[in-house]
């Protein structure tokens, strides 16, 4: 891997961990859901860099779009804030 790519991967990993921690600790569930979709976005970029474009496509479509919308609809019908 070239230097630029390595830097990109390190930044991506930091964003990944930060978003995961954010999703766990945030009490507003809508924000937490958006954070999980950020995780999926970065992960799909990683899959692409690791030469798995099929998995990257699936992750982008399922993780970013469908899971997020299902979670948001569920939150809308129940409670927005965690106790």
């Amino acid at each position, binding site marked *: 891997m070239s230097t630029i790519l390595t830097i990109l991967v390190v930044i991506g990993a930091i964003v990944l961990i930060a978003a995961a921690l954010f999703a766990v600790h945030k009490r507003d569930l809508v924000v937490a859901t958006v954070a999980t979709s950020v995780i999926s976005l970065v992960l799909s970029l990683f899959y692409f860099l690791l030469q798995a474009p*099929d998995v990257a*496509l*699936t992750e982008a*479509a399922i993780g970013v779009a*469908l899971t997020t*919308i299902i979670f948001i*609809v569920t939150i*809308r019908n129940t409670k927005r804030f965690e106790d």
Partner: protein
Amino acid sequence: MKKLISIIFLLYIAYQLFVVFYAIPFGTDEVRSKVGKFYLEHSPKDLQVANTVTSIVVNFRGFDTLGEVTVLFLASTALGSILFRRREVHTRLSHLRTSVEASSIVRVTGRILFPMIVLLGAYVFIHGHLTPGGGFQGGVIIATGFLFLLLAYRQFTIDHKTIMWVESLAGITFAGIGLVGIFMGKTFLENFLGVGKLNELISGGIIPLIYIAVGFKVAAELTGILDTILLISITVDETENQTEKNG
């Protein structure tokens, strides 16, 4: 006590994983050198399929894919049976749906983008044996297109009968193609068509046919799931409004 047990359990799992992975020297390609090599060699040679992942999913492991599609079908059926309120909601909410419209930006963008998203999805599953992606990915992309329309236009409804027909026909096509292999005197899901030439659209025998069927099936199932879930959301909104009015 409970925490202690779970910590010991996790440590045990970690130890077992360590033992397995320690046996493989770091950096060597132990896994791909055995079974992966077979696929990488035989997929372009025997099947003339450029995308090895597709050839594994549809040809070498075709039976697993049939099971996978069945699982998705079961999930969507279960969700539909739990959340099914279609008929009464439809009549009760027909006046209400138009009053909660999305903003004009979302509506116009949805109208312009919808055909492009569907086209992209169709491209992904028709070219599943040439480029990355396949039936599942293409189907999900098409479902997101329908999701866009559902979010943009509240009066946009999806006919569940059509969805059911598309889904069933796609499933029957998949199983039927598999059965043809038996009638030809070979095995279930045998690749009975000519494989053609590498990197051509019509190549790989039954692989593109099966992936097109899978694409239709996944798109129909996920669109049905999304429609059911979004409809429940509208119902909850309406009951909340009613209680507010009454209270």
